[in-house]
Structure formats: structure tokens, C-alpha cells
């Protein structure tokens, strides 16, 4: 299976997603977690039920990731750590494509098996956050 494919310069959406990913990582690096605006973020699901939602802890995961503390990021929320890594990889790869790299990630079809596996991973992530995340 080929993980990469030959491609031209990055598309508009590749650039837009890279810009958004870079902005999120920069915000995680600059903004303190214990001051507004990040300290104002409250999860309505947790407020209503007492249980964390699927993405509770993602802000802490991003903050830990950009401070090069991958284990802390994974502990805060594995999905958040994976998303932060994805943002970083996509941003760097898109920048390289802007400067002449002619390889892009290969597209793949989301078969029912892949979708079921992704849903199971999300469920496992939620269970991890519910059991080990901050209460």
C-alpha cells in the first residue's frame, strides 16, 4: 500500500487547514491555561452530567504538546494529542509542498470496517478520559 502519492502544489483547502492548524498550535503556545479566554471555556456536557465529553482535556493536550510534553498531552486526552500531532505534521508537510516537495498523503476510502474501527477508537478515548482525566 502506498502512503504517499505524487501531487502538485497544495490546494486551497490544504493551505487553509494548515493555517488553521498552525493558528491553533500558536494559540496553545501563547495563551495561558489559567487566564481568560481559555479559563472561560467550560464544557456544557460536563456541567450537565458531571462526566467529561469526548474532547474534554483537548486544550490541555494541545498546550502540553506544544511544550514538548507528549506524555502529559496523551494523559490529558489521547485524541487531543493525536490532533495536535496531525496539525503539526500537516502544517510542516504543506510548507514543504509550497517549497517544492511533490508528495502528498494518499487518499483512502473509508470502508465500513475503517469507520467502525474509528468509532471504537473514539469510544476508547472517551472511556480513557472519563476514567483517567481530570474530574
Amino acid at each position, binding site marked *: 500500500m502506498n502512503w504517499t502519492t505524487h501531487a502538485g502544489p497544495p490546494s486551497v483547502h490544504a493551505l487553509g487547514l494548515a493555517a488553521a492548524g498552525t493558528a491553533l498550535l500558536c494559540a496553545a503556545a501563547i495563551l495561558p491555561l489559567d487566564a481568560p479566554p481559555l479559563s472561560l471555556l467550560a464544557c456544557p456536557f460536563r456541567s450537565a452530567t458531571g462526566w467529561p465529553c469526548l474532547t474534554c482535556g483537548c486544550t490541555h493536550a494541545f498546550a502540553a504538546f506544544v511544550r514538548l510534553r507528549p506524555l502529559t498531552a496523551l494523559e490529558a486526552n489521547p485524541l487531543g494529542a493525536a490532533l495536535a500531532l496531525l496539525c503539526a505534521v500537516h502544517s510542516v508537510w504543506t510548507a514543504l509542498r509550497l517549497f517544492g516537495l511533490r508528495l502528498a498523503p494518499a487518499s483512502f476510502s473509508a470502508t465500513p470496517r475503517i469507520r467502525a474501527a474509528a468509532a471504537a477508537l*473514539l469510544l476508547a478515548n472517551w472511556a480513557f478520559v472519563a476514567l483517567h482525566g481530570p474530574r
Partner: protein
Amino acid sequence: MCGKPLVVPEQASAASTSFAGDVPAGAPALEPGTPWERRVELGSWRAWRDTVVEALFEPGRLFQDARIDRGAAQARFAVVTVTVFWIAGQMLERFLLRPWTQRAVAGIAVRGQFGSVVQKLMQIESDNSPRTAALMALLTPVVVLVTLYVNAAVTHLFAVLLGQNKRGFAATFTACAYAFAPLVLFAIPGCGAPIAVVWAAILTGIGLKHTHRIGPGGAAATVIAPYVLVC
């Protein structure tokens, strides 16, 4: 001539899972384009006005006409529309309605369980310096662009998970970009923002139905699932 039936294969890559791609090269565009996508012939002001009016009152027609290979134009429409009206709303609220809203928010803070949060919000909003206004004007388009792409990415992720991704990320992005049109209501302080957000979510569903050519149930599930699972 040869007697065999003509079989035209589907574009295999169109429904594949890629966040980075526009429409596959060479794919024919059958849609005429929204007024905003035809702004060269219509003029920018008329194109913008017609697009917003269609998005608000005839969304089915707008999304049927939308071309999914016009990502840059669609991003520009969303960023310009939301930025202008969001800044207008903030200015209106900041300079004209501040005493009234502060009294209302203080009342909520005394009654509700989010008193400390509301007090912090009031402290931030009480800064009326020119530096804050300039910072707000500079950061708003960036925040809108990031929100647009994060919204489209999350929606597309759920479209993929629920098996509703038929035409790729570009189709999801088209729906999300034009669904930002009701955010013109951000210019109305108070009730404008909540109405705009709900209207935008409904428009996203209508947009997904047309751009991905899926059923109304699948489109509704794709829009509602992130609100339920990802707060």
C-alpha cells in the same frame, strides 16, 4: 457503433477520504455557481447581497447552484461576511449598549451558577482602549478563518464516520462556508448570536444534503453529532 453499452466510470477519488484536496482535476462542473461565484459578471456588492438573501431564504437553490471547486471564493465570502458583521456588533455593543448589557449580565451573575465566569467576561469587555479595538479588528478575520476550517474539518470527520462523505472535503467546506451567512445577525447585540448559530447549523445540514447529494437524515445526523459528542 460497436454495439456495447456506454459505461462511464464514477470518479473514484471524489468520495475518498482526503482533507487536503479540492475537486479532482478534470472533473466537470455542472453547477452554474452561486451569485458570489459569479461576482465578476454580477458585481461584488450585488453578488454578496444575492448570496446572503439566497442563503437565508432559499438555501436549497443556493446549495444546488454552488460549485465545490470554488473553495477560495467561498472562504472569502464567509470571512468577509462574518468579520464585518461581527465587528459591527461588537462596536455597537461596546459603545452604545454597554450600560444596559452590564446591568443585565450583572443580574445573571447574581442569580446563576456561572457568576465568576460572567464577572471575568465583564472585566475583559470593559476594556475600551483603541489598542483593544485595533487588536479586535485584526484578529477577527483570523478567528473566523480558523473557525470556518475547524468547523468544516469536524463536520467532515463525522460525515466520514457516518458514511455520508460522497464528494470529498470540498463539498463539506462549501456547505459550511455558505452556512456562515446567517452570522450577519452577529450585528444584533444580545439575541443575534444565538439565533445566528442555530440558523447556521440548520443551513449546514441543508448544504450537506445538496453538496454531498445525501439524504436529509444523514445530513441532519452529520450536523447534530458533533454538537452532542464534541462540546
